[in-house]
């Protein structure tokens, strides 16, 4: 393989540093979350495992750099097919955890195909749209194939049941589609149609506990002892951080286990309690930089597929951030959604690292045309 010297020159050191820096901040917060109030010796095993995940994620991210992202365009159906096959495999051979069947095990390594599917769907949609975009926008006929490509995995994942990830796929697909623009007429009809689907989903698609969560969000007084309690405790944790926070390892809400899931979904509450508005604002700025960086890659890429792909990956990161932070601050219903690079969790770390790998890949090959 011939090494293109330009690749090194164009390497996006800024994005790499940003990703590693946020991961580092994440580890500090996770340390607080799991070590405060812990009686054991040495490091908490969750912290050690997260270190390993970030290490493994970095390796995967680096691996993603070594091929031309344009190959993904050609291989998109293969990747999509494999991921869809794994999702169907989960249906039959999957392992259950917490009431739903999401995992596939290969000789001791468990993978969550729904996570891989996010990336595969983005690649497939980017590939389809790259061949069809026009400033006038897409017509209905052009949207049929993307819609099918999108609904198959969504159906399989919602069936697991994993409503959060299913919703995530829809949000990503919707963002990409709006990004490449649809005809005004199509947009209006789709908007109207989704307005009609919502009540159907509400009455036939949602499980009782899922409805309860949404109702609790709309009216926290409905469930002051369950989810409502979590949200109140989370808000107390965030609010009590005030401007400068209580200091590293000093968070009382965290240490006394008032926070639910403080190392996964509610980790921002730990950060906000211990580092205050200053710390939270720094993280927000870092995330804003990260998203802007991703959009900038889409902006600068000379290859249409690359642009759309970069946008898709960026939207995936964005929605996670928005939903998670909105949730812990009581702006959104409680759905299982980790904070990228900060929350504990292998699947989330690896998927996001693959995403950043693709962004870096596109960025260093931004002068390649189609």
């Amino acid at each position: 393989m011939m090494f293109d010297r330009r690749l090194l020159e164009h390497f996006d050191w800024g994005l790499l540093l940003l990703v590693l820096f946020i991961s580092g901040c994440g580890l500090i917060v996770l340390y607080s979350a799991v070590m405060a109030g812990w009686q054991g010796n040495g490091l908490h095993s969750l912290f050690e495992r997260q270190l390993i995940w970030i290490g493994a994620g970095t390796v995967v991210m680096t691996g993603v750099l070594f091929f031309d992202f344009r190959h993904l365009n050609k291989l998109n159906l293969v990747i999509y097919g494999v991921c869809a096959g794994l999702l169907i495999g989960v249906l039959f051979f999957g392992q259950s955890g917490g009431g739903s069947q999401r995992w596939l095990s290969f000789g001791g390594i468990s993978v969550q195909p729904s996570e891989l599917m996010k990336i595969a769907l983005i690649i497939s949609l980017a590939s389809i749209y790259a061949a069809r975009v026009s400033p006038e926008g897409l017509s209905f006929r052009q949207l049929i194939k993307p819609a099918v490509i999108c609904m198959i995995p969504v159906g399989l994942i919602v069936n697991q049941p994993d409503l959060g990830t299913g919703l995530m796929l829809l949000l990503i697909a919707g963002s990409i589609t709006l990004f490449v623009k649809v005809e005004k007429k199509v947009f209006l009809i789709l908007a109207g149609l989704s307005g009609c689907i919502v009540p159907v989903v509400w009455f036939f698609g949602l499980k009782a506990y899922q409805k309860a969560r949404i109702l609790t969000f709309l009216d926290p007084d409905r469930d002051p002892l369950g989810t409502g309690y979590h949200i109140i405790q989370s808000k107390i944790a965030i609010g009590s951080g005030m401007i400068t926070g209580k200091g590293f390892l000093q968070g009382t809400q965290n240490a006394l286990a008032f926070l639910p899931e403080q190392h996964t979904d509610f980790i921002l509450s730990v950060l906000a309690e211990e580092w205050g508005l200053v710390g939270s604002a720094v993280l927000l700025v870092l995330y804003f930089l990260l998203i802007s960086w991703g959009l900038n890659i889409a902006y600068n890429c000379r290859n249409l597929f690359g642009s759309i792909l970069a946008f898709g990956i960026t939207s995936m990161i964005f929605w996670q951030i928005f939903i998670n932070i909105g949730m812990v601050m009581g702006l959104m219903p409680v759905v299982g959604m980790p904070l990228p690079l900060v929350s504990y969790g292998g699947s989330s770390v690896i998927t996001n690292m693959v995403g950043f790998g693709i962004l870096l890949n596109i960025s260093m090959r931004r002068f390649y045309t189609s």
Partner: protein
Amino acid sequence: MVELQRNKERDWMKQRVMVASLCVLIVFIMLFLRLVYLQLIKGEEYRRLSETNCVRLKSIKPSRGLIFDRYGELLVDNRPAFDLVIVLEDAGSVPDTISFLSSLIDEPYVDLMEQIQKAGVGAVYKPIILKKDISRDQLAIVEAHKFDLPGIYVEIEPTRHYIHPKTAAHLLGYLGEVNKKELESGHFPLLRAGDQIGRYGVEKSFESYLQGRRGGRQVEVDVNGRVVQVLKTVEPEPGNDLHLTLDLPLQQLAEDLLDGRDGSVVALDPSNGDVLVMVSSPAFDQNDFIGGISNNKWRALMENPGRPMSNKAIQGEYPPASTYKMLTAIAALEEKAIDIDTTFFCPGFYTFRGRKYHCWSKYGHGRMNVVKALAQSCDVFFYQAGEKTGVDALAQYARGCGLGRPTGIDLDHERQGLIPTSAWKRERFNEAWYPGETLSISIGQGFNLVTPLQMAVFTAAVANGGTLFRPRVASTIKDVHGQVVAELEPEIIGGIPAGKHTLDLVKKGMVDVIQGDRGTARSIRIKQIQMAGKTGTAQVFSRKTGEKFNSENQVRTLQDHAWFVCYAPAQNPVIALSVIIEHGEHGSSAAAPVAGTLVKKYLGLLEPEQPADAPPEG
């Protein structure tokens, strides 16, 4: 041209990215403003809440549903119980406080200390229960010395109260603390450790209705754990009330009649299967089980030879004895082994394959048809009727009449009895069926076993013209406002496989048991109405091995069980009864008067004086 196209495409793409960036910027500004709102504007308030660390969840137990009898008479309700607790953090010197307390309320010091030790470390702030359900006197003393007893508090806990102790104990049942395994099983998502659930009787089978739904309170507490203000409350939902089909006055009378004797009485409404009476004697006091039964009381219950913990109405399996002749008559008539004109001569015994099978009357009954044979309970007639019918046909009819299978009553651990067949014997003993054994089962001796409830269901079916009802213990479930939550409709589980002609003959025989001049239960006859019934005297062949008897007990346990089944009035029955008195000797002398008294009470005919007992017979 291509280049131009590309540039145009790129410009357009750049424009889209700019729009997207603007959206992202707006979202991040919104998130930042929310942070500012929470941390700056509301920061002080949340800081205060977090510093006192003061939002706690307190659960509020629901009050359990009440239980009523068929007339709306309250049988089970809830009363406040006072639990004595200690919070170690507030107690100062624990040994001093406890020893003072121990002297005040007269409870052993070591017992109280043991409760604290059991709670273990890490329970400094949590109240530890020292003594559950203290008496009013103890409560008064503790309240009076409140200021000398730092850290000692009284907590009020709703507690089950059985208004008539021992009445219908087996039917009502009792509660027990939910155990760890049940909590982990996920069947009781609303329960927490320390909660009570039904363990026996309808308390158990109607648990899901009676339980109710836990509520809770979000409260702000101060450093001492005292509630400063209530933030949010979710009211508990009280359990639903259960309306039984039980007739309390009749039940109490039946229990009085069985007092001091081991046995069971079941009374049903033949028109719908309502359980009017269900007695199993001796009984236990359900109130003893509240807060856990003491070891001594439990041991006494377990060692009582009368088996008070077993509900004999559904768990007692007895040879049906002569009450089974109703069944033999039905099977023989339907199988055309006999008809209305068939007669057998009874010289007091029946010789079969060179062996003499005795009738209970050693002088013999003379020439008998099926009606007379039922009235006088002639064994010789039924030996021959059964022999002609055959063991397997008898078994088939027995099952059709609801014997040998559970009735499906809403109570746990119902036994199904035993109806032998030739196949059963081959499987069980690897032996062929002997024809002589058919003679034994034809008169209800031998392998057959039935429960008093099965016999009551069977008798009720004979009374109502052949319909077998599932015994119904509860009719309605209502919520706390009196709105009906569920109606438990009567349920038909089968029909006696016999025509009207057959049933009419059997009924005539049963009427003659009481109304006939030579009927075995003529002693309970009354002027106002006609009754129909059948006596039975079950021989106790061998005493169970492994039990220790004193000589007096030994004699008693070799005596026969007394059976009586009946319905009344004979023409339009409103009640069907099955009575068994263990070791009561004769059905006619021991069991029939109990049934007679209950019928009179139910029909409002009870007179103060009782008719004298007639001579005993089978």
